[in-house]
Each structure stands twice: as structure tokens, then as C-alpha cells.
């Protein structure tokens, strides 16, 4: 052991330029928002804190939709050195909360009235045992369809309202020699489409029973088979090279008029705006046919790690800044999502953003707001990935719809 220590001393002597841990008056934030717009938006938060004299230690780790960041988080927690705040999604927050690793933000939440302004479906992921443990940043909704307006106009297609309309529109595009649906064949993208299709096929009760309550009967029902059949229809109407494609490139196909529709979350809007397109004029955003009243969501939050029992002043300031209306608007304007609190003025957002806010508020009050299965807000990660496996295998022709239903029931029961 002495030798190890000697080696260590040697190492540290040579590597004298080691980095110091977070200062007492700093917040350290682990997140995966590193691409241009998102990172710039987060900088707003940083500057906000700096005006209050609080330093920001940035700890960005991108990749795998947060997977890498979660891996790093495990390492940090194991080392006994968790960051102040960590970007996280859905069940990951609850898992950490249940381990007792997160701070209790109830005092702050009561003071600022979070209970009144944050939709209940979202609170489910921000609280454990009635304690606020994380600060929600935004709500992404995933049941959007993005369309190239001039392509639809040229083929005399109106915004489809029902699945039948959608089928007709797809057939019309196919007849015109245009790829009807732009899609990237990656498991999470397949599952994103599946979310919307299942919701549209069976309605909200079916969706809830299958993906949130994980009811075996519903998972194995004929309606589920119907949903898989509809997925097969979509599979037949994507181009040959869909597999493995990044979603950005699928969006580019719609932007360039090579394809008519893409089913993707609201982050796709950024690609359109970046290409200089105007919502309503160059491209359309609408809810997946048959899910006009529903919103399936995923929400980014910052979970706050316990700093030795109490919520530190800096941590409270960070949480409060995240929930402040000005940051919520400034951030979501760039991110494409909508604010996590429903009481802010959305007039600064573009047409799609305003539509999104309206839909969210309506769905939240009518009980039509559901966590997205594909994005880990309906069931825990193990179940989510089990569903991915089946949906992707079916989409790639490994299973027919009947087998897929059976496999789904099996996979979910193993993962539960």
C-alpha cells in the first residue's frame, strides 16, 4: 500500500496543474446541452447567477441523449463528490430521489408557489414523497408532425386530421414520387413515432393503461396489434435509406422538399429556423393526426443534489432562477420547447411555440397530458428500452405485428 501512495504522490507532484473542486460559493452544473442554441440559452442562466455573485462551474457531457452524463454522474456520486445540479429526465430523477441523494426544495417551492404553476403530470417527475427534488426547465412535446408546406400545397394536401386523412396524404405523396415520410431509423426515433401512433390508435386511456400502468392485457390487445400495423404502414412509406439516419438529416429532407412529413419532437423546429424557414409559411407544425387534444411530453429538469443535509443558498438561487419566468421564456425560445410553468406570457415565441403552449395548458387542465414512453417519461428506463427493442425489431421487419405484440408483453414483464 505504501508503494501505491508513493506512486500517487509522484503522480500528483508531476500533475501539479490539477483542477480545484467547486468553491463553496459556486454551483457546479452537469448537463448535456452543448450544441449552439441550447448552450447559449443556458448561458443566460449562468449570467443571471453571476449577477447575484454566484459562480458557475460548467460540466458539460454530451452524448446518447444524456446517457453519458448519467454515467458520469454515477462516477461523481460514487466518488462522494456530486455536482450541485444535474440535468436529468423523468424516471432517472425519481430513481435518484428514491435513493435519498437529492435535496428537499419544499421551502423554496412553497415560497414561489411551484405547485400552482407547474402542471401536475410534470410534478410527478419533480417530487418524491411530496418533496420537490428538482427544478423543471421546459416541456418538450413529442407528438408533432413537421411538414413542408409547398410540397403539401403542390399535391393538394390539407393538414390531416385523422389517421385516414394521413394515409390518404401519404398515398398522394407516394403517387407524386415524393418520399412521404422522412424518418431516421434509430431506436428512439422509431419509438417516438410509435408513441404518437399508439396514442392515435387507442386514445389516451389505452396509452395510459399500456405505457404508464404497464397493463399486460392492454399491451397484448388487438388495439396494440393495430398500432403495430400502422407502424408497418409508416415503414412502407419511408425511403430505403432510413436506417441509422440522424433525425437532423431526416428534417433536412423535409426542409429540402424531398419528403413531406416528419414525426419528431418540437426540437425539430430549430433545424427549420436555422435553415431560414418561417413557421406557417415554409413549414407546418401540427399534432399527429388523432392526437390533437393530447400532449405526450418529456421535460428537462435540474435535479438538485443534497449538499450535506440543507439546501445551500447558491442551490436555492439556481433553482429559483430556473423557474423564473424570464429564464423560462428566454431558454425555450431557443430550445423549441415550451416553459415548464403554464402561467408565463408566451407572446415572444413563434407560431409553433405559441401553439405548443396553448396545447400544453389545455392538455394539462383536461387530463390529456401524458409522459412520453419513447423519452422515458411513461415508464422506467428498463421498460423503455425493452419497448425500444420490440418497436425497432418490428420496424426493421424482424417481427410481424402479431409477434411484436407477444414480444412486447414478454419484454415488458422481464424489464418490470
Amino acid at each position: 500500500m505504501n508503494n501505491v501512495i508513493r506512486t500517487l504522490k509522484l503522480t500528483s507532484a508531476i500533475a501539479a496543474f490539477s483542477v480545484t473542486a467547486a468553491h463553496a460559493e459556486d454551483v457546479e452544473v452537469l448537463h448535456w446541452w452543448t450544441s449552439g442554441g441550447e448552450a447559449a440559452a443556458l448561458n443566460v442562466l449562468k449570467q443571471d447567477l453571476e449577477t447575484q455573485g454566484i459562480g458557475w462551474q460548467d460540466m458539460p457531457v454530451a452524448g446518447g441523449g444524456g446517457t453519458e452524463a448519467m454515467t458520469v454522474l454515477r462516477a461523481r456520486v460514487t466518488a462522494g463528490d456530486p455536482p450541485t445540479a444535474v440535468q436529468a429526465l423523468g424516471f432517472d430523477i425519481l430513481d435518484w430521489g428514491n435513493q435519498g441523494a437529492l435535496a428537499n426544495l419544499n421551502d423554496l417551492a412553497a415560497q414561489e408557489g411551484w405547485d400552482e404553476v407547474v402542471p401536475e403530470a410534470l410534478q410527478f417527475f419533480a417530487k418524491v414523497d411530496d418533496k420537490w427534488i428538482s427544478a423543471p426547465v421546459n416541456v418538450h412535446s413529442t407528438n408533432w408532425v413537421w411538414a413542408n408546406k409547398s410540397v403539401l400545397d403542390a399535391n393538394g394536401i390539407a393538414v390531416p386530421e385523422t389517421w385516414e386523412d394521413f394515409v390518404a396524404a401519404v398515398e398522394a405523396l407516394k403517387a407524386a414520387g415524393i418520399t412521404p415520410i422522412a424518418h431516421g431509423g434509430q431506436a428512439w426515433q422509431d419509438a417516438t413515432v410509435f408513441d404518437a401512433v399508439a396514442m392515435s390508435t387507442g386514445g389516451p386511456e389505452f396509452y395510459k393503461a399500456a405505457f404508464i400502468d404497464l397493463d399486460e392485457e392492454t399491451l397484448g390487445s388487438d388495439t396494440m396489434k393495430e398500432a403495430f400495423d400502422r407502424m408497418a404502414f409508416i415503414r412502407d412509406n419511408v425511403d430505403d435509406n432510413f436506417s441509422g439516419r440522424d433525425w437532423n438529416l431526416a428534417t433536412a429532407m423535409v426542409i429540402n422538399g424531398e419528403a413531406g412529413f416528419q414525426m419528431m419532437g418540437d426540437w425539430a423546429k430549430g433545424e427549420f429556423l436555422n435553415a431560414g424557414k418561417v413557421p406557417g409559411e415554409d413549414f407546418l407544425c401540427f399534432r399527429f393526426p388523432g392526437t390533437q387534444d393530447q400532449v405526450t411530453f418529456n421535460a428537462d429538469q435540474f435535479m438538485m443534489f443534497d449538499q450535506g443535509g440543507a439546501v445551500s443558498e447558491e442551490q436555492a438561487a439556481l433553482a429559483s432562477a430556473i423557474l423564473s419566468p424570464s429564464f423560462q421564456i428566454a431558454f425555450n425560445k431557443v430550445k423549441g420547447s415550451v416553459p415548464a410553468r403554464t402561467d408565463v406570457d408566451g407572446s415572444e415565441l413563434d407560431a409553433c411555440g405559441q401553439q405548443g403552449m396553448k396545447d400544453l395548458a389545455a392538455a394539462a387542465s383536461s387530463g390529456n397530458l401524458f409522459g412520453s414512453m419513447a423519452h422515458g417519461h411513461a415508464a422506467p428506463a428498463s421498460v423503455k428500452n425493452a419497448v425500444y427493442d420490440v418497436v425497432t425489431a418490428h420496424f426493421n421487419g424482424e417481427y410481424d405485428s402479431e409477434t411484436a405484440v407477444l414480444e412486447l408483453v414478454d419484454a415488458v414483464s422481464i424489464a418490470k
Partner: protein
Amino acid sequence: MAVASSDTAIRTGRFNRTLIYVVLLLFVLFYMLPLYIMVVNSMKPLSEITGGGMMSLPSAFTLEPWAKAWSTAQVGVEPTGLRPYFWNSISMVVPAVAISTVLGALNGYILTKWRFRGDTILFGLMLFSCFIPFQIVLIPMAAILGILGLSGTTAGLVLVHVVYGVGFSTLYFRNYYAAFPTELVRAAQIDGAGFFQIFWRILLPSSGPIIVVCVIWQFTNIWNDFLFGASFASGDGAPMTVALNNLVQSSTGVKEYNVHFAGAILAAMPTLLVYIVAGRYFVRGLMAGSVKG
């Protein structure tokens, strides 16, 4: 010890020679292809790439992606580009390579010239350690770094890389020193030279080639490591690969492929440089050592 020479006794005819050149050039094409894609796309505006022209030469040539990747691209919340992370990598790689090479050289020296009972087993144990998948050591390693108080420091990262580099450096040096005449060591011993003296005066002076091999190998592996860098470095102490990963990976953001490729080439510059500068000695080093029994 073999003397470096490109002499060969094999003779080939003219037809065969043409064929050989053709085959060799075909392989050049194969090896250069991805680099071509990366370089070409790093010099185009993004619209040309998303427009579908991934394989063609740029029609509107631009170096802007390079400038952006280096100094203004968003890597964290601040638009710093890859530049600040460059130094982080250097300050991690240099000590890690140095320590693991020194340890490897000493181990190789002991395992061949100071043999004792069970040394082969020890070597086997060390060699097998090269095969451990890094993903499984992450959590226990984090715990140990936490206990040692090295979590989130460059020193901690150096330690990790030394631990998992020492197997290979020992392998290289052991095989190299195995071919070194043991009589010289014995003779020096009889003259009263000590352990370190023999190493310093007799083995080290002729170790140049294998040091090159070992340094190239360790440098490449440590420079390109992502998993440990991401897990055990703090945010602004993160190595280049973590910054590169942050630059190119984004799940719900706009992807600037041209900047990604420029950044990737920039991040690989030091290793490419090492290969080009030291490459001449590389084969010589391998030849003199690691592939001989």
C-alpha cells in the same frame, strides 16, 4: 539484436512489381477514404452537406468551420471552441505516458534480467489486465479516487491511465529486453554495478526504439480516451476528447457536421503529428523489440 535494414533477399520480376504497386495504391485509397470525407466536408458550408453533397468536393470553399471549431464553437455554456481543452489533454497525457513508460521499462527489465520464482505468472497477470473492459471499472474506480481525494483532478486521471497502461508498456519492454544479451548484465553485476546503475547505463541507452513504440501506443490510447476523461475530470479540466464529444454529440440540437469534422481533425492533430514525426522510428522500434520473442 537485429540491425535495422530494409534489405531483403527476395527478388521480384517487373510485372510483379507493377502489380505490387497497384495493390499498395489501392490500399492507400482504402485508408484515405474516411479522411477524404472528413476533410472535404470540413470545408463546405453546412447547406451543401444537408443538401446531400456529402461525397463531392466543396463548391463554395470555406475555412470557417475550422476557425469555429477551434475558437468559437459551443462546447459548454460558453463559446470557447476546443482551444482551452487542448492544454488539459497535454497536461494529462504527458505525465501519464511518462510514468507508464518508466514503470513498463523497469518491469520489463526485472521480468527479464532479475528473474525470480513466479515471474512468468506475474507477467501473465499483468498481461491479462490489458483485457479488462473499461466500462466495468468505472464505478469502483470512482470510489477509490474519491477515497484518495483525487476525484475530478488531473492527477486522478493520470493515475487511471497509468494503471491501465502499465500492462501494455510492460509487454513491450519485456519482449524487447528479452532479446538483450543477459551476459552484459551479469558482467556488470560482477563489476559491482547495482540494479539502477545497470538499467541506467546498459539497458536504457539502447532502448530508444522501444521507447518510441511504447510512447506512440500510450499517447494514442490516452489521448483518444473518452470514458475516463468524461467520468473523472472536472468540467473545465476535461480533456480534448470530452470537448470534441460535446461539440459533435447533441441529441436535440442543430448538427453542424462541417464544424464536427474540422474539430475531429483538430483533436487528432497531436496524435497524427506523433505518427508522422515518430513513425520512421516506429517500425524500427517494433522490429528491434516487441515482435521478437
